[in-house]
C-alpha cells in the first residue's frame, strides 16, 4: 500500500467528519482509506495541465427570485421532529 494512513490522520479526519470511531473502526478506516487513495492515485497517470476543474457539466448561474413567503407556518411539524424540545425551541446541551 503506497498510502499509509497514520493514527494522527485518522484522528484529524475524524474531527473534520465529526465522527467518533472505535479502535476497531479506526483500524478499518486506515486500511480502507489507504486502499481507496491508492486507487484514486491512478488519476495521476492523467495529464490535466491546463484543464479547468469542472464542478458542473452545464454553466450554472445564480438563480434569483423575489423573497416571498409561499409556505405556511410549519412550526409544529418542524418541531415535532426535534429529538428534544421545550416550548417552541430545540433543546441542545449547554454551549457556554
Amino acid at each position, binding site marked *: 500500500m503506497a498510502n499509509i494512513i497514520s493514527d494522527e*490522520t*485518522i484522528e*484529524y*479526519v*475524524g474531527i*473534520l*467528519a*465529526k*465522527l*467518533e*470511531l472505535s479502535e476497531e*473502526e479506526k483500524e*478499518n*478506516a486506515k486500511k*480502507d*482509506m489507504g*486502499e*481507496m*487513495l491508492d*486507487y*484514486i*492515485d*491512478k*488519476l*495521476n*497517470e*492523467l495529464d*490535466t495541465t491546463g*484543464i*479547468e*476543474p*469542472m*464542478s*458542473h*457539466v*452545464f454553466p*450554472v448561474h*445564480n*438563480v434569483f*427570485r423575489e423573497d416571498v413567503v409561499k*409556505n405556511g407556518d*410549519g412550526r409544529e*411539524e*418542524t418541531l*415535532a*421532529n*426535534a*429529538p*428534544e424540545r421545550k416550548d417552541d425551541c*430545540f433543546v*441542545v*446541551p*449547554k*454551549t457556554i
Partner: protein
Amino acid sequence: MSLMSLTAVELGKKIKAKEVTVVEAVQEALDAVEKKEKDVNSFVTVMRKEALERAKEVQEKIDNGELTGPLAGVPVAIKDNMCTKGTLTTCSSKILRNFVPTYTAQAVANLEEAGAVIIGKTNMDEFAMGSTTETSAFGPTKNPWNTEHVPGGSSGGSCAAVAAEECSYALGSDTGGSIRQPSSFCGVTGIKPTYGTVSRYGLIAYGSSLDQIGPVAKDVTDCATILEVIASHDTKDSTSVEREDYDFTSALVDDVKGIKIGIPKDYFGEGLDPEVKEAVLAAAKVLEQKGAIVEEFDLSLVEYAIPAYYTIACAEASSNLERFDGVKYGYRAKEYQGLHNMYKKSRSEGFGAEVKRRIMLGSFVLSSGYFDAYYLKALRTKALIKKAFDKAFEKYDIILGPAAPTTAPKLGESLSDPLKMYLGDIYTISVNLAGLPGISLPCGTDSKGLPIGLQLIGDCFAEKKLIRTAYAYEQTREYAHSPLA
C-alpha cells in the same frame, strides 16, 4: 391475473375506461405487498391507510374529469430518500428512522398532481451509498428473480418492488448507477435523465452534482410517461434546467433507421461476464437489423471514471451529511458530554459503516493540503471525461453497452471488499459525471436465470433518441415476469 402484472400505462387505461376502480388497483398492490414482503423486503414504510383514502379521492377526481392523465389512480412506490410530507422518510438510515418531512419532493408532488397513489417508501442502500441495498439499516432487499441474490442498489427496493409486482412503477434516484444497475439486476427498465431534468428539491442529497431522480417500470413506454410527469423546471432547485422538450412519449416510435450507435470497445474488456457480453452484443445486432448503424469505437478514460467519481461523490457527501447532527431532527445519542460530543456520538451511532467510510474519505480529500491533489484533480478528470463523451456524440446518437459487468451477486458477497463493489459501477458512473441520460432495459438472462441489462446512453437532453432506440429494441422482446411476480 393480478392488476400489478400490467404496465402502469395499461392499468391507467383500465382505470380510465372504468374497468377497474382506483381502490381495487391500490388494494391489489397492498395485498401483493402483504404477501411478498417477507420474501423480498422492498419497503421501509407501507402506507396502507393513506393509500386507500387517497385512492377514493383520486377516483372522485377521475370521475369528475379533474384527472385525465395516463397515471391517474396508478399505485406507485417512492424511494425512501424523497421527502413525503407527513410520511416517514428514512434514507434507510438509523439517523433518520423517525424523520417526518414537512414538505414533499417536487418530483413526487408532480406525480401526485397527476393522480398517482403512493403505496409506500422503498428500501435502499443507506443514503444511497452502495450497490446492493445491503447497507440499509432495515435489512437487505432480495432479488425477486432469486431471493438468495441482491437486487442491486442503491434503488434496490424500488426495482425489486416493480419486479415483484408489488406496485405498478416506482421512483428511484441515480448518483452513480443507482437506477440503472438495480434495474438491470431485477429485469426492469429504468431511466437516469439528463442532470437538471427532474427537480432535486426534497431529494435528500448524496452527491448533489450527480444526483438525479428517475422512473423504474416494466417497460420503456411507462418510463417515458413517468418522466414526462416528473420532469419540470423548478425554481426551488438552482440546478434545475428549463428544457426545450418535455414530450418524451412522442419518442415512442418503433424506428431506428439511420440512428448511429457506438459501442465502446473499452466497455467489453476484462471483468465483463461473457454471458452479459453476449447478450448485450446480441441486442446491438438486433438494433442493426432494424436499420441502426452500429460501430465500435474507443471512448477512452473509462478506468478513470471510478476514482474520479468516488472522490467527488464522497466529498459532496461529507458536506451534505453534515446536517445530521442530532439537533433538529433524527437520531440523538442518549449519552454525551457537551454539544460537540453530542454531534459526534449521534453521528457515529446513527450512520452505518459504508456511510462513515465515505464521509471519512470525503472529509480527507477536501482537507487542506489534499484538496488540490485529490478533489480538484478529480474535477479536472471529470472535465476530460465529459470531453470524451462530447467527442463520441459528434459521431454517434447513442452509446450502447452493458449496465453492469455481471448479473446480481449473492447476498453477503459484496460488502467485505468495498473497492471490488465500487468496480461494479464502471459502466454507469461516467454517465453521472458527464450529466448524460442513460437507460437500462432487460436484454436476456444468464445461465442462472438472472436478468441482464442493456444500457443505452444519450447526449445531454437527447432523452428522445434514447427512448426511441430503447423502445424499438423492446418491441423485439416479451417482458419477462419474475418468479415472485
